[in-house]
């Protein structure tokens, strides 16, 4: 009985560690998904429009 306890505790601790690692991975996957969701959105035309106007202004000056 006395000899079994440390082993059982170790096993429990290692299982908990695996569990924690798995959970961290899961959060990581989610985090990327959250970010990528916005990355994959269509870019509003406004962005390209503003950049195009700035580019034209630059060319006129030159």
């Amino acid at each position: 009985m006395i000899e079994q306890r440390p082993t059982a505790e170790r096993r429990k601790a290692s299982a908990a560690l695996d569990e924690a690692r798995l959970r961290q991975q899961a959060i990581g996957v989610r985090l990327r998904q959250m970010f990528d969701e916005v990355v994959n959105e269509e870019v509003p035309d406004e962005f390209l429009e503003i950049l195009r106007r700035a580019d034209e202004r630059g060319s006129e000056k030159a």
Partner: protein
Amino acid sequence: MEGAAEKTRPERSAADDAAFKRELVQLIPHLRAFARTLCGDPTAADDLAQDAMMKAWDARASFQMGTNMKAWTFMILRNQFYSEKRRSWRQSQLDQEAAERTLVAVDDPEAPVALDELRQGLAMLPAEQREALILVGAGGFAYEEAAEICGCAVGTVKSRVSRARRALHAILEDGAYDRDGASAGDAMRSILADAERLSTVR
């Protein structure tokens, strides 16, 4: 010869500008995503991303082609965000309120509950931990790049990321996020189930 060439700035050609513009355009989706994590409110985030894009464009002469433009533009965006914040500290409280509002709103009604909780959990982290975790964990930056973007030491980024991971895990585990009625373990269970599905897809 080389020394003289360095002193007189070489003329920027139209081709240089075109190459810069092409690369910048490709970065817009990433700038929008990063801005969204800082502002929360999508409209304010797009304003920030546009400002950063224009600052990058105006500063194009100081950018060395071939170096990491993504990290460079993220740094510009981040500086822009914090300088605006400093200008009016009251705005930051409004940002926080807006963030909390949008963190709850999900565009996709099919999206599982867990994404909401992750957003809420992120909102509870200190700003410097949140941005470090997002840059490294979602933006795909190396610790060194994230350190450059945030203007701090690599070791600082590492410890921020690891503290953020632990804190986020604890928040999701305990259901410490502000959500009435939902049971604590649901968020984590949902995240786990979804991650399993996603990882098999990858």
